[in-house]
């Protein structure tokens, strides 16, 4: 047995929840390695969109996937299918075993283009195009278990999907779960954010002094999750562990976070407590970082409230790929896993000069190496939904 495998066996317990496959569709690349390399090169996919200009939008910057050709009302389905296919291949799941695999999808609106068509007068069965409908179609395509779950927790849905999948696996309800998030570009959301004056004029710059709002994106990210006792039997390679999901609710405002960040901070503490670690065990925080003043300020305050002795590094990537709503925190979870595998934190996208300063909070302005075993993926959503997911090294 190799030294590496021996080390792996000592770190993982039979009931450890491991990731054995990942897949993505992003505006910066349609495989995990391409996406990762683009982040390390500090590229951004945010650019002006001709169709948004033609529709009369004031703010026309967005990050979109150019390579995917699909009917508008099936774009989410196609994004999810492509990302899940990658995850299944990497996990080396046998096609014959897929019928025992559960699917948990996180999304904000499902296929919003279908709802737009319905509003324009087309006869469309809406139940087939909400998040639940998308999940059922994906499950049918891969012949997964039909009892899919759709977590509709808006911009934090990816974290919720992965975290609740870990809960079900821990109780041995399923052998494997495919979990993640998907969101096709939504004109409805673009209208909503634009008219709510939440949109950036030139592309979002989360936590930067010049931050002026968010930029919409689109994408999909999925992982194959299973208990180590099961993964090891089928000789699947563990990429990372999912340790704990902490959740709270602001109960404050339909769209704005509570400025104090208190409940955000409590979701982080809940996750750390359940994972039996403390702040100083965290290598870095993958921030929500939407780029709006209200959201960045609340999140900054939440990080300030964290009890720590060492400098806490943080970085976010919506400045590179935009805000893909229900897919966002699943995509960011993939970045966390890649960073644990490569021991590198990619530079925070769009952040040059931090909008606030604190000696114990360190923005990652250039790619940085790190050695710690844990990363915290935070995501916050409309309705005051707060989530923090502890992801750890597998070996």
């Amino acid at each position, binding site marked *: 047995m190799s030294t590496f495998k021996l080390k792996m066996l000592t770190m993982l317990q039979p009931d450890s929840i491991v990731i054995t496959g990942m897949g993505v569709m992003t505006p910066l690349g349609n495989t995990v390695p391409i996406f990762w390399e683009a982040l390390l090169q500090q590229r951004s996919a945010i650019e002006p969109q001709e169709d948004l200009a033609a529709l009369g939008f004031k703010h026309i910057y967005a990050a979109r996937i150019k390579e995917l050709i699909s009917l508008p009302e099936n774009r989410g389905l196609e994004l999810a299918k492509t990302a899940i296919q990658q995850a299944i291949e990497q996990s080396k799941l046998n096609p014959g075993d897929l019928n025992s695999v559960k699917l948990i999808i996180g999304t*904000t*609106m499902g296929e919003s283009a279908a709802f737009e068509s319905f509003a324009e007068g087309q006869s469309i069965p809406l139940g087939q195009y909400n998040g639940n409908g998308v999940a059922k179609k994906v499950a049918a395509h891969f012949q997964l278990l039909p009892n899919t779950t759709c977590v509709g927790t808006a911009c934090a849905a990816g974290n919720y999907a992965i975290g609740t999948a870990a809960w079900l696996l821990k109780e041995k309800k399923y052998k494997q779960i495919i979990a993640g998030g998907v969101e096709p570009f939504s004109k409805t959301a673009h209208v909503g954010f634009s008219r709510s004056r939440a949109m950036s004029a030139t592309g979002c710059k989360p936590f930067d002094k010049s931050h002026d709002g968010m930029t919409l994106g689109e994408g999909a990210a999925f992982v194959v999750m299973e208990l180590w006792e099961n993964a090891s039997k089928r000789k699947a390679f563990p990429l990372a562990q999912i340790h704990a999901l902490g959740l709270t609710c602001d109960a404050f405002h339909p769209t704005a976070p509570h400025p104090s960040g208190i409940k955000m901070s409590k979701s982080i503490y*809940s996750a750390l407590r359940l994972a039996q670690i403390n702040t100083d065990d965290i290598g870095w925080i993958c921030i929500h970082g939407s780029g709006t003043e209200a959201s960045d300020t609340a999140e900054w305050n939440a990080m300030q409230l964290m009890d720590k002795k060492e400098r806490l590094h943080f970085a976010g990537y919506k400045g590179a790929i935009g805000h893909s709503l229900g897919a966002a925190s699943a995509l960011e979870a993939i970045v966390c896993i890649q960073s644990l595998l490569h021991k590198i934190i990619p530079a925070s996208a769009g952040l040059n000069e931090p909008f606030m300063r604190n000696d114990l909070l360190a923005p990652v302005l250039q790619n940085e190496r790190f050695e710690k075993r844990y990363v915290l993926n935070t995501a916050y959503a409309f*309705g005051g939904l707060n989530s923090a997911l502890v992801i750890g090294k597998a070996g």
Partner: protein
Amino acid sequence: MKLIQAQKIMWLATGPWYKTGLQPIVEIINNWISNNGLDTNKTGLIFLCEDGGYDACIDLWKMAIEQGVRFVNPAPFPYSLSSSPAGFVAKACNIFGPAIILVEKENGSTQDELDVYAHQIFLQEVTHLYIVKATLYNSEYQYNSTVSLYTGQ
């Protein structure tokens, strides 16, 4: 987990819920909070609803077409998301614990899975949990919901 109370309700609204509110659900929960002396910092919510964002989503896009994307009133936008009914109830009832929204029909999730979610929510310093199952989209604005209250013991 142990069921304390459950109530099934139907109500006829004068318009889509995002304009008329979810008062019947809110009243039940707020009554339970005051009657049982519950600490809302230690309450959680699981909200099962497939169609909570439909009306606002459709209305917003209709208005965007009619009024233009630069001029449309964004008021329906926060309620166009699947999560919006849960956010509404959490705010109205000060539910500060975990809130999970499942986009599915009333009988979509198995009780087995709901038990797992509830168990994990109770591990997050939560003593009481509400599970709401609601149908919130039809042309008659005739809504129905089942509201249940559980403890972790």
